[in-house]
């Protein structure tokens, strides 16, 4: 029975790790304020983030770049070989700028957050690493991250050179900065130009929800089974898509402190009704319905004419379905003429216990600076976080990417504070329940909200 042995080994790993966690939890609050202080002690702040408590003890000065032979360990993940190559290139360029530094890039395969948590528990943390928003809310209050505000003040890197909606996730309540967004993505309406032409549909750039609904109707051509049908749109039962509709309808996911679910408001119920109506009217499908593993797959196979995805679709389609003629339009406007979008971003951050805080900052500064961010954009891998690159010539050649970039102006991060995981799970389940006709939108969302609120009451540390 392989399942049993696997479980048991998982268990022993987990228990060994918790042991280590217990042992280290008490004695690991040392913050590095090492290095010579060359700053004035001044600080800058980014957008205040009420979702994350500030640490009680953190460095308030900036260390100058260390001299002598320095070895930095840098961790992250690589979703594609292209991403891996890009990061490696960037790190190599950094090494050229700082000949006394050697950098080891150690991408972590699999569950990044879990592996990093184990690293933190054992005190074996990379100097510089990728930081996901849910990680930030754990790492920041516990004082595990290098405070970047003094460094930004010293080197005159203003937080406002980055999109505030992206910065926010990596700041704490008073706006102190602990991570700088490394790249990002938002959602766009991907539409199949060929299928649009056949259905006599024009450019969807200024569509409203009603336009989307009518278009899905026109685009759907049902055959004897889902396999030989074409549907208007692929919409998965996923919080990370529906959220854009919730926001466009003026709704909110959680209260400002993240401790109260608000998605079951009238706006939320209406958004859920609209989002699930496609599946109910058979003008939309979940990707699994047509045997696709995700939206991109269904879209590439031309079984759906539209879907909501981000910039990662561009290299995916180019590689797997190069013949599909598609365009990218902004998400349709809600009933009150408002647009909503979700922003997905991760940051570069440094460990507070690093031996080389000065050099760690230099690395972060380089990887979030104009030179590397331009490469990120030109590689077509993700969007740059610097506002100064918004008018880069790349956008003229790729108007679709420009649409995604514009999302930063009206989108919100797909991160909802303490109950983030619970909200994503419960709302996704609620959407699925509505789509499968098991519950009404109001019932499903109310039940999910109650579950989230109970979860917060029970599990958020006092």
């Amino acid at each position: 029975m392989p399942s049993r042995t696997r479980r048991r080994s998982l268990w022993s790993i987990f228990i060994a790790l918790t042991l280590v966690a217990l042992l280290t939890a008490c004695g690991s609050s040392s913050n590095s304020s090492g290095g010579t202080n060359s700053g004035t002690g001044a600080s800058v702040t980014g957008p205040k983030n009420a979702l994350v408590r500030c640490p009680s003890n953190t460095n308030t000065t900036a260390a100058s770049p260390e001299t002598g032979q320095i070895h930095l360990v840098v961790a992250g993940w690589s979703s594609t070989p292209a991403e891996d190559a890009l990061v490696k290139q960037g790190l190599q360029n950094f090494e050229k700028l700082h000949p006394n530094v050697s950098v080891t890039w150690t991408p972590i395969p699999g569950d990044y957050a879990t592996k990093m948590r184990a690293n933190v528990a054992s005190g074996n943390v990379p100097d510089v690493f990728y930081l996901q928003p849910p990680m930030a809310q754990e790492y920041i209050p516990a004082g595990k991250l290098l405070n970047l505000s003094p460094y930004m003040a010293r080197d005159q890197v203003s937080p406002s050179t980055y999109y505030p909606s992206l910065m926010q996730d990596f700041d704490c309540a008073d706006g102190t900065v602990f991570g700088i967004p490394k790249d990002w993505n938002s959602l766009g309406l991907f539409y199949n130009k060929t299928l649009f032409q056949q259905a006599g549909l024009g450019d969807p750039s200024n569509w409203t929800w009603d336009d989307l609904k009518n278009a899905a109707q026109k685009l759907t051509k049902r055959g004897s089974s889902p396999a030989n049908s074409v549907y208007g749109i692929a919409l998965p039962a996923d919080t990370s898509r529906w959220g854009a509709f919730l926001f466009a309808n003026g709704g909110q996911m959680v209260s400002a402190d993240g401790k109260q679910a608000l998605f079951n408001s009238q706006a939320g119920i209406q958004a859920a009704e609209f989002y699930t109506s496609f599946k109910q009217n058979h003008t939309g499908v979940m990707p699994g319905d047509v045997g696709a593993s995700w939206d991109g797959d269904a879209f590439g196979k031309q079984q759906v004419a539209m879907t909501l995805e981000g910039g990662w679709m561009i290299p995916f389609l180019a590689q797997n379905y190069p013949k599909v003629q598609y365009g990218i339009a902004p998400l349709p406007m809600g009933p009150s003429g408002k647009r909503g979008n979700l922003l997905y971003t991760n940051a570069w951050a440094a460990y507070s216990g690093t031996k080389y805080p000065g050099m760690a900052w230099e690395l972060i500064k380089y990887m979030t600076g104009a030179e590397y961010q331009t490469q990120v954009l030109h590689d077509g891998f993700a969007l740059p976080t610097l506002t100064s690159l918004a008018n880069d010539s790349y956008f003229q050649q790729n108007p679709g990417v420009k649409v995604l970039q514009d999302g930063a102006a009206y989108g919100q991060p797909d991160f909802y504070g303490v109950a983030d995981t619970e909200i994503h799970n419960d709302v996704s389940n609620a959407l699925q329940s509505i789509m499968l006709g098991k519950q009404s939108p109001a019932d499903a969302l109310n039940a999910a909200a109650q579950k989230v609120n109970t979860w917060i009451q029970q599990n958020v540390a006092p």
Partner: protein
Amino acid sequence: MQLAASKARPGGPSGTRRSLPFKVNRRKLTETLTAYTFLAPYLFVLIVFTLIAIVTALTLSFFYVDFGFTTPIFYGFRNYLNIWYDLTHDGDFAAGLRNCVEYTIGVVTLQTTLALFLALLLNQKVHGRGFFRTIFYLPSMTSSVAISLIFYWLYQPQGGINYVLSLLHIQGPAWLENPSTALPAIMLLNIWTTAPTFMLMYLAALQDIPSTLYEAARVDGANSWQMLWKITVPLLRPTTFAVVALGSIGAFQMFDQAFVMEGASGTPLRSTLTAAMVIYDTAFQKSLMGLACAQAFVLFIIIFAVTLLQKRYIDANIQY
């Protein structure tokens, strides 16, 4: 044997020593030490990775622990009360346990029957018996993740199974998307992979049944059906207990198949969420180690109770 022999032996050659009560004990001590030296590597692993781990997990279940970020907070029975709330309010752990029970009943019943059936078949003197034994055992030797991926493809709406059904003019469902077919689909996969292991256990047990019993029965005029029900099945009861108990323990802890095929949230609609997946999610996604430990203990107690019941009702000692 060794210990008994040394005890029986009279004292050593020296008369003075004979009066000391240590003589025998010292030898005994040496032997005990030798035994423990040989056992040491295993005991070390057992103590560190099992005993200490269990005690730690039990301790942690009374704390709020988040994996090294904050100092643990003593919680008393709060984690267990939260589980009770979860169980009484249709929470995720309740859903996971419910699925586990359904899954265990389905899997254990069918796989035990199938294993016995296959064992009886392969116990006959048929041509190519060795070949069939090997073929039937193959699924058990394959990685469960690899098998899950193959079945994932077979269960797709346009996958292998629906293709075969379409040849019979039956429109197959989207197996893994439908809440009522997803769990049974995983059950089938698991039965297919684990039944052969238990078939092997039954085969071994079948060889142990003395042929004299069958001969005597035949003389008394019993037919094969009667021999199966009156001799084979009752005499296999200890093996059946082992098969059912091991099967139930494995089924209750099911994780990888559902995780690979349906993802961590047990889609669709929690229908493939298992208790082990909830524990994983609590510990690693939500970083609530204390609660996860408490959940693990609740699961352990349930499995323990189920096994005791099975021992009570199946493992009766039958003698003729």
